[in-house]
């Protein structure tokens, strides 16, 4: 099967080469058969990548320990479930997995648009084949997952050997979320390839109109949704497994996953400027280019070990290939841009400084500043080593200090933006739109203060969250009132009806609501408490309102590991609440161990208990207890964000006719300012 797999991989490489070269020839000659053959080669590439990936999975399932990759990432006792995760737990496998996910996107694009957008698709096909070609080159010639296990002999060559059992999977990866976090995040990273291909293709082909924006927006949202889920699942995994009490440590690889998310978010907003007003065309194209390049950079940071990281289980010297690829992409983008710059000429003027347009400009500004600040902070240790010879540490406190103010500014804009009208907002409508939310926000701040919140940033954050939440409720209320008046349905039905009439706008509001919840959770970090103590059996430790009694310890033999457990009774205000069982797991296959955190989670706070180890001198177990307020809001907020994105992806029920140039945000549209000659009709998006 390993020979079969590597054969499929090399064949995929050949087909990708054809799809790329043949595709370019097809664009030049415009020969229909050539166009068709290039497209079908592209589909064949995907089929072959699927075959190769399935072969590797098969090797894991059948415990084939003559393949080097299987030996280093699996063993016989590993459950079938985690053998799937073993596929992407190392360098070679995760690169193949990258190709696999990209192939799913590529094949969907090629099949969906096979009879549409005839001018554009050959370009898209070539660009996608180019990206696939790069990853297939790596998988075939640099880091092959099918390499046989070999031992060097005296003659300088290798003898093939097979082992009886493998080294096992890294214990921190043996956790259910590790089976869904990487596929999600990778689906995000790879998904941004599609908008990139469409943007570059439209620019190269000088494709008329804003069609590519419509095509791209949907794919960007899919990728963005996966990226969001991937980031949050990763955060939850870090929280539940690593046992340091937090979920975001500004680790280089975490930062790398945030960068394309930030630029992708910026694009999803600024794209509306182009749809509605024909503005910011250059900016949008470059945002898409940048997002894709940041995805490649993210993969580079994860793989190369340029910056040390918690994700160091996937390192090697493969970085140079990625740097080369990044430079090629940059070169192609620059060349395409300078060649066809005039195609991106903007159409409109800014009517007023107080308008939706300016709020989008500032939204993009803040997102981009955050992105560049995180990027330069992440790379700063490397820069400082180049310039001064010694590494300067840039840790979590730095990133927090820089990003908390930016995050608050963004939250502020999240509330303000949707209340401002396109073109210009009258003072009258400003008053009407802002009166309620501003009052509610200030009130929220005052209540927070009297409830004992004294941290300035947390107080501002809570206040802003109330403000933004009120603006969203107000938007739903005003819209639903109109629907209700006409259909006399209930409020709930009216809200659903309203949302289905304009999924994009109201789905967006749901996403904003999810972000508000996430920000509430983030602000909770200001009030974290922790205590660590060596605890004899039968004694207690107290933190906040809780008292924890260590009743006993036990040991469980599982198939793949031995678990040492603490049996802890939790009491709140002297009353027993529940039992918690924090664990340490020892994995004999690779002599490693991992923690299993026990969490008692409520909307108010998490009680987070870690069994931190046994002191060998006095045989006393160490317990590490945290109180992390409001953490649950982050996970629930994440779910709301994903839900909102899915709503926004649903096509609007009836194609609503909207006046593109006079789109006004809330229910207060002023129709007097329409200039008939400049009105264009588009589908009902907001």
């Amino acid at each position, binding site marked *: 099967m390993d020979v079969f797999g590597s054969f499929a991989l090399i064949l995929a490489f050949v087909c990708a080469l054809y799809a790329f070269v043949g595709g370019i020839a097809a664009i030049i000659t415009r020969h229909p058969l050539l166009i068709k053959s290039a497209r079908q080669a592209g589909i064949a590439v995907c089929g072959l990548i699927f075959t190769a990936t399935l072969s590797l999975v098969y090797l894991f399932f059948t415990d084939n320990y003559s393949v080097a990759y299987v030996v280093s990432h699996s063993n016989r006792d590993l459950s079938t479930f985690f053998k799937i995760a073993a596929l992407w737990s190392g360098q070679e496998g995760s690169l193949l997995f990258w190709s696999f996910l990209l192939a799913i996107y590529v094949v969907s694009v090629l099949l969906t648009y096979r009879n549409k957008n005839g001018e554009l698709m050959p370009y898209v096909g070539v660009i996608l084949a180019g990206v696939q070609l790069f990853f297939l080159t790596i998988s075939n010639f640099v880091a092959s997952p099918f390499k046989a296990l070999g031992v060097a002999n005296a003659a300088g060559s290798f003898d093939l050997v097979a082992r009886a059992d493998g080294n096992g999977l890294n214990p*921190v990866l043996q956790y259910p979320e590790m089976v869904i976090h990487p596929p999600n995040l990778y689906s995000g990273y790879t998904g941004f390839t599609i908008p990139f291909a469409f943007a570059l293709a439209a620019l190269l082909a000088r494709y008329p109109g804003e069609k590519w924006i419509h095509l791209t927006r949907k794919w960007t949202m899919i990728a963005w949704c996966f990226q969001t889920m991937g980031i949050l699942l990763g955060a939850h995994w870090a929280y539940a497994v690593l046992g340091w*009490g937090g979920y975001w440590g500004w680790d280089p690889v975490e930062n790398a996953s945030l960068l394309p998310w930030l630029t992708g978010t910026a694009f999803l907003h600024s794209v509306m400027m182009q749809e509605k007003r*024909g503005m910011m065309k250059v900016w949008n194209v470059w945002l898409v280019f940048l997002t894709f390049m940041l995805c490649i950079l993210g993969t580079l940071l994860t793989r190369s070990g340029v910056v*040390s990281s918690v994700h160091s289980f996937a390192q090697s010297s493969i970085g140079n290939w990625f740097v080369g690829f990044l430079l090629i992409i940059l070169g192609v983008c620059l060349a395409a841009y300078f060649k066809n710059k005039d195609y991106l000429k903007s*159409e409109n003027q800014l009517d007023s400084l107080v308008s939706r347009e300016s709020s989008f400009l500032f939204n993009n500004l803040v997102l981009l500043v955050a992105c560049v600040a995180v990027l330069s902070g992440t790379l700063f240790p490397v820069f400082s080593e180049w310039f001064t010879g010694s590494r300067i*540490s840039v*840790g*979590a406190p730095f990133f927090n200090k820089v990003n908390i103010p930016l995050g608050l500014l963004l939250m502020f804009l999240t509330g303000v933006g949707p209340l401002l009208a396109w073109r210009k907002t009258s003072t009258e409508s400003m008053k009407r739109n802002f009166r309620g939310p501003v009052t509610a926000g200030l009130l929220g701040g005052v209540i927070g203060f009297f409830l004992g919140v004294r941290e300035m940033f947390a107080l501002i954050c809570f206040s802003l969250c109330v403000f933004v939440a009120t603006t969203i409720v107000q938007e739903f209320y005003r819209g639903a009132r109109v629907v209700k008046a006409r259909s006399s349905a209930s409020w709930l039905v009216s809200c659903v009806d309203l949302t289905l009439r304009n999924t994009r706008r109201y789905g967006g509001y749901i996403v904003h609501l999810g972000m508000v919840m996430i920000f509430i959770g983030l602000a909770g970090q200001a009030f974290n408490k922790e205590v660590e103590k060596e605890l004899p059996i039968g004694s207690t430790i107290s933190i906040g309102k809780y008292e924890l009694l260590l009743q006993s310890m036990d040991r469980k033999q599982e198939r793949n590991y031995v678990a040492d457990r603490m049996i802890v009774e939790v009491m709140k205000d002297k009353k027993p609440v529940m039992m918690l069982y924090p664990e340490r797991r020892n994995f004999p296959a690779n002599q490693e161990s991992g923690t299993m955190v026990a969490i008692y989670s409520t909307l108010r706070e998490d009680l987070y208990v870690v069994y931190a180890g046994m002191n060998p001198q006095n045989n006393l177990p160490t317990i590490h207890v945290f109180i992390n307020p409001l953490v649950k809001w982050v996970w629930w907020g994440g779910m709301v964000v994903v839900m909102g994105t899915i709503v926004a992806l649903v096509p609007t029920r009836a194609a609503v006719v909207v006046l593109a140039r006079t789109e006004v945000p809330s229910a207060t549209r002023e129709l007097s300012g329409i200039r008939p000659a400049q009105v264009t009709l588009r589908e009902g998006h907001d």
Partner: protein
Amino acid sequence: MPPGAKRLLADQSDRTHQIGSKLKCMCNGCDQAAGKCYHVGGAYSGPCDTAKTMLKEIDTHIAAGMTDEQVLKAMIQEYGPLAYVEPPKSGFGLVAWLMPILYLLGGTALVIVVMKRWRKRPVAVAAASSANGVRVSPELLARAREQAQRETEE
């Protein structure tokens, strides 16, 4: 143990980790804070031995009655300036702090310039390039207006 003493112990440990999160774990294998070190792999995940030693030292300093600032100073003196988890606000480290401020100022300046240019942009550009959009007949426009009116009335 009297309740007061227990509280003191809890606070002390919280303080230790607070201070520890401002110091870099000096094992040279990670870029994490001593108070938040969570090595993956290795002997076991969780604070490595170096981080643990550093936390114990902080405990000792606290027990000696030092303030947070004094503890940090003592630790930095012992492990060198690189032990501080933030870049120093002097020398090359200052660059790290100035960068985000420069981005924000530069970006804001750029936005202002762009806005000014957009304000001045002649309307004629809009009319000329509307060739890409769909031309609208007066009846369709009237219908669209009516629908917008219907959708938006309060």
